[in-house]
């Protein structure tokens, strides 16, 4: 009898390769979501008009915040969707166990978050290029990566970590829902409870407000992501598949 | 030979009989190698273990002999042994059935012997 021995590392690597290939469609959906966000961004988030010497000056603040909100929803959805039955079962035809499946999913989510973070950050540039073509714009002022390389990189890192954390939340949520349908309502409860309760506000403040620097925030976001992923791994280890 | 047809005999017995028939017909000569269990399995679309069982019966009856690592070979006296065996066992069995059937049909002993002689005559 000949038994092949696969190490965890090998299996995870193979699974990541396979999943990146299989989930390519999600990246297409990302681009679509970003474009949609861009369209909504065109009108700007706020504007201000003044009149100096019979000349109308309109200052419009345009940002890619809308794009980010769209991408955040996408990340939550992707984190969730790869835990659903269809995705879960389609991995079972290949070599896997719960732990390797989780690890490879997490790596895939990290890679997708990096891709989503970078592209979302760069969408700012697209906006800057496209804006003058459609609107009656004379001057666009913005900070580009060349002006402030370090700041830009930190911003990009922040974006990536935020997206990762949201996808980690989606991943944990999906895992819980797979365990029991009732957890479906957990997210809804959380969405309502977090900004309205004292503890929720404290947690939000701890993560987003009490920061000495942006780097510190990045570290915190990564920490939260790790906690969420570990919880998902622990929960799903007890999970039976293809019942 | 279709082994999966409705026959009351176990498949491994039919495998053994097939090899015996091949030996009687001189398609397997003395000291010649016979099919392996895997060749038989492929040929008759059966599990190799079943085929092996058929071979084992013939080894036990010393119609075949085993050469380690080489396979199964036909024993020197195989053909005469098979003929002898069939005369003793198969023919007796068939005669037994013939007598039973004759009794069921109320054919007398006389009539039965007449019938056998008649068949004998027709074959000549």
């Amino acid at each position, binding site marked *: *009898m*000949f*038994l*092949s*021995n*696969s190490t*965890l590392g090998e*299996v995870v690597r*193979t699974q990541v*390769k*396979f999943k990146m*290939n*299989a*989930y*390519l*469609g999600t990246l297409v959906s990302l681009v679509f979501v970003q474009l949609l966000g861009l369209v909504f961004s065109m009108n700007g988030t706020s504007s201000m008009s003044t009149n100096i010497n019979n000349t109308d000056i309109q200052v419009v603040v345009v940002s890619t915040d809308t794009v980010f909100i769209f991408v955040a929803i996408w990340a939550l959805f992707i984190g969730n969707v790869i835990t659903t039955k*269809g*995705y879960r*079962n*389609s991995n*079972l*035809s*290949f*070599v*896997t*166990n*719960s*732990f*390797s499946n989780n690890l490879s999913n997490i790596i895939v989510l990290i890679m997708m978050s990096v891709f989503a973070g970078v592209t979302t950050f760069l969408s700012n540039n697209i906006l800057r290029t496209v804006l003058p073509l459609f609107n009656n714009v004379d001057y666009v002022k913005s900070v580009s990566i060349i002006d402030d390389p370090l700041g830009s990189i930190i911003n990009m890192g922040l974006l990536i970590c935020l997206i990762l954390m949201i996808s980690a939340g989606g991943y944990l949520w999906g895992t819980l829902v797979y365990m029991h349908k009732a957890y479906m309502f957990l997210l809804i409860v959380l969405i309502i409870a977090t900004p309205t309760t004292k503890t929720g506000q404290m947690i939000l403040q701890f993560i987003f407000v009490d920061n000495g620097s942006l780097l510190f925030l990045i570290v915190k976001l990564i920490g939260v992501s790790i906690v969420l992923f570990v919880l998902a791994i622990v929960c799903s*280890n007890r999970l*039976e*598949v*293809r*019942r | 030979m279709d*082994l*999966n047809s409705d026959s*009351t005999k*176990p*498949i*491994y017995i039919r495998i053994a009989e097939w090899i015996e028939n091949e030996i009687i017909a001189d398609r397997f000569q003395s000291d010649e190698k016979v099919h392996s269990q*895997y060749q038989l*399995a*492929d040929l008759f*679309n*059966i*599990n*190799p*273990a*079943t085929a092996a*069982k058929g071979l084992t019966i013939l080894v036990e009856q010393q119609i075949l002999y085993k050469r380690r690592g080489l396979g199964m070979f036909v024993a020197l006296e195989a053909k005469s042994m098979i003929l002898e065996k069939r005369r003793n066992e198969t023919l007796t069995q068939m005669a037994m059935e013939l007598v*039973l059937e004759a*009794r*069921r049909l109320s054919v007398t002993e006389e009539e039965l012997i007449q019938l056998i002689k008649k068949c004998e005559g027709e074959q000549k």
Partner: protein
Amino acid sequence: MTVIDCQNLKKRYKRMNALEDITFQLEDQKITGLIGRNGAGKTTLLKVLAGFIRESSGDVKVFSNNPYNNLRVSANSILVDDQMSFPDSLTLADILETAPDFYKRWDAELATNLFRYFRLNPKQLHARLSKGNKATFNMIFGLSTRCELTMFDEPTNGMDEAVRSDFYRALLKDYIAHPRTILISSHHLAEMEHLLEDILLIHKGKVVFHQSLEEVKEYAVALQGPTNLVEKMTAGKEILHTKQLDSQRKYVVIRREDLPLIEGVMIYPVSASDVCMYVTDDRKGGIDDVFK
């Protein structure tokens, strides 16, 4: 070497016990038929062995490891069933290309040849395949993995007659070329018994017997003849099945033993498939009794 070792294996679901008490061992390089009626626990047993679900109690070992969540068992075993699925974004050709990354003994040549023989479309998506073609593709996948433990759960469901016999032939030929442990469940014993070496019969979550096919075929005999004679012959014996043929004649199946020849009573062998059916029958009387 022992490939599977189950000791008092139980599996409880919320509302029922799928496996009550399963104890058996499977030696390597044998084709074993897992036989049982609907709801006997065949699928549950296979899923426990594949490591998809966890036993509730008892002990289960595959390659000396508990299969649940075990990477070594996953790498060396495959369960082919109709719930098998693949990502919607991959074509059949993509799947066959991905497989060797996971299964080190993947036989690409066999996969390609079978794929061509059964005229599957490489650009097709797995989810879009017809029931029969899906079963065919899953079978090709399962055979090509060359896993030391290859399990099929009702593999021929949905296949047409010609594909079924081709499948059994392909399985046998590949087994002859590369012997390995094959466990195949079905409720059509008759159509695959020629392939089998052993039979594992389970009923209501328990093992009824685990014997060679030849033993199963010699497990029982049937007697048919005048009711009084048949009843006299079978008195005090373990009766597996009876059927009143008409007002005077009866058909009775008992455990095999040497019986005296009695004028008027015919003695028949009982096929393996009938043996399995009779020993797992809990009802008194047969379907005919419903119509009395």
